[in-house]
């Protein structure tokens, strides 16, 4: 039996976010909100472990009330229950404050039934920070296993998990003690399609909501106040000065270009 928590975040589909160059503010209107793609793989991983070893999967999200949507998606994929952490006091939390709040919620879950595994996505595509997972692991003192691309197995007796981590130019096989926190990459698994009954169950499920008063929190450590980082300004990415179009038929153009590159010795002789 494994007690598992999956942290899922609702994010704007970043392909659609633009900046208004006049006002330097984000144009988010009409941008669809989605389940962070890596988190979907985290849910899938937990559900697969539940199928293999038995246990329970809790999907956990901090966000505005609309974030319920991504929790329902997780339920449709096989999570057993969902908890939404929602409070105005959480607004403006950076990664340090976010991991503080999520860790407090995991502690509360742990008090009911001890938690063996926490899953996060490798990173959230809105900020791409990859900091919340390690932050939660550090606060809970869980074994931290990031960039997990395969789960080889869990030894419930010895309380160990063996995984493979995806690093730049290598793969690492590592065994960690439970409880552990895993951040996962997309190679880990193929997502399943939610079945119709599962979708109906997910749509009807009640989602537990916890506010700041349901958790043991220091008010100075949440929201804007609890966030050491702040955004000074946002702006459109600077454009690199454009250059020279080389005219002519392919052969001519190629000859001119090559002459330029060879003359300036940018391309040296081999």
């Amino acid at each position, binding site marked *: 039996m494994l007690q598992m928590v999956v942290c899922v975040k609702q994010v704007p589909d970043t392909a659609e976010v633009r900046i208004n160059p006049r006002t330097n503010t984000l144009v988010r209107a009409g941008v669809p909100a989605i389940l962070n793609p890596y988190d979907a793989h985290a849910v899938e991983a937990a559900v697969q472990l539940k199928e293999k070893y038995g246990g329970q999967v809790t999907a956990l999200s901090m966000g505005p009330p609309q974030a319920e949507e991504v929790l329902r998606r997780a339920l449709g994929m096989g999570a057993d229950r969902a908890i939404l952490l929602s409070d105005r006091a959480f607004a403006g939390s950076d990664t340090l404050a976010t991991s503080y709040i999520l860790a407090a919620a995991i502690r509360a879950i742990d008090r009911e039934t001890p938690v063996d595994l926490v899953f996060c996505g490798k990173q959230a595509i809105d900020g791409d920070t990859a900091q919340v997972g390690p932050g939660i692991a550090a606060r809970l003192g869980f074994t931290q296993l990031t960039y997990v691309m395969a789960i080889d197995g869990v030894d419930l007796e010895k309380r160990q998990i063996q995984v493979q981590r995806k690093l730049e130019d290598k793969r690492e096989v590592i065994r960690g003690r439970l409880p552990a926190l895993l951040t996962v990459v997309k190679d880990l698994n193929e997502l399943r399609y939610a079945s119709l009954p599962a979708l109906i169950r997910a749509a009807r499920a009640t989602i537990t909501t916890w506010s700041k008063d349901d958790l043991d929190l220091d008010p100075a450590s949440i929201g804007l106040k609890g966030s*050491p980082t702040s955004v000074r300004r*946002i702006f459109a990415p600077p454009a690199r000065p454009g250059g020279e179009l080389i005219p002519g038929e392919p052969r001519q153009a190629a000859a001119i270009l090559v002459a330029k590159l060879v003359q300036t010795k940018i391309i040296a002789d081999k």
Partner: protein
Amino acid sequence: MAGEPAPVSWELLGAGRQLAGALKVELAGVLLGQGVEGLANEAWAYGADRVYLVEDPVLGPYRTAPYARALVELVQRYRPEILLLGATSMGRDLSGAVATALGTGLTADCTALNIDPATRLLEQTRPAFGGNVMATILCQRHRPQMATVRPRVMPLPPRQEGRQGELVRVGIDLKEEEALATVLEVIEEKGKAVYLDRAEIVVAGGRGLGSRENLRLLEELAGVLGGTLGASRAAVEAGWLPPEYQVGQTGITVRPKVYFAIGISGAIQHLVGMQNADVIVAINKDPEAPIFKVATYGIVGDFLEVVPALTEEFRRQLAARST
């Protein structure tokens, strides 16, 4: 900066040197590992005034817990204003744990770092929302100000042979049981674009290639130039090249002397990974393609004609020059 040195460590020393200069403070490097003392010479050569060295068998293979503990203790003892790490997998794994333990702010994947002379604050600039937006982040009241920087974003500083500095050995009481994990095996992934981020010439293809077969034309060009192949995400998603070849926001950042963008439109997520190239050559049949806005040289045309012509011209002109 741990164990086997990732080249980004030296790039960080270059960036750190400038920040230290602006703040009029010293620049220190940190070496954690086992049998890594020899690297102190490298750190001095690349600009460190001082090196903190923690050698311990527990730090042999990288595990988060002992590395984080060692770095946290160093920070608490020596109180740096700024702490920089490489945004490699290991660097990001470690920085998140360390920033949390220190209760300070951390800005990931910075592409520019500057000191505001009035406030002495570190201005940390990074792409957000998939590269569509840049944000400058401050960490006003907590220390150290922590940032990770992607490999190849900052230039490698010149190596000053024989430059010496101070070595500070620090003993930290680490226990194997507290490592929480055991590395059983490390499997090198052979045949991958491991050196793409260090390549001097990158020949990259996008969706415009149309098929895997057409990659051959790029391979021939790369072959003549001694270059390395690269890809846009669209080319990777089409299955023409494996993910390790992807350049951009969710791929590798490159900083070659010459970057050929062939059949690549120039989406912002691609540009953030290659716009630090010294020279960008774009080949695209669409004169309106955004890649031409960043290209040093552009040729509007069908790559099926342009690329073989380039390969042949390079062959001819390089041969002519060497005789």
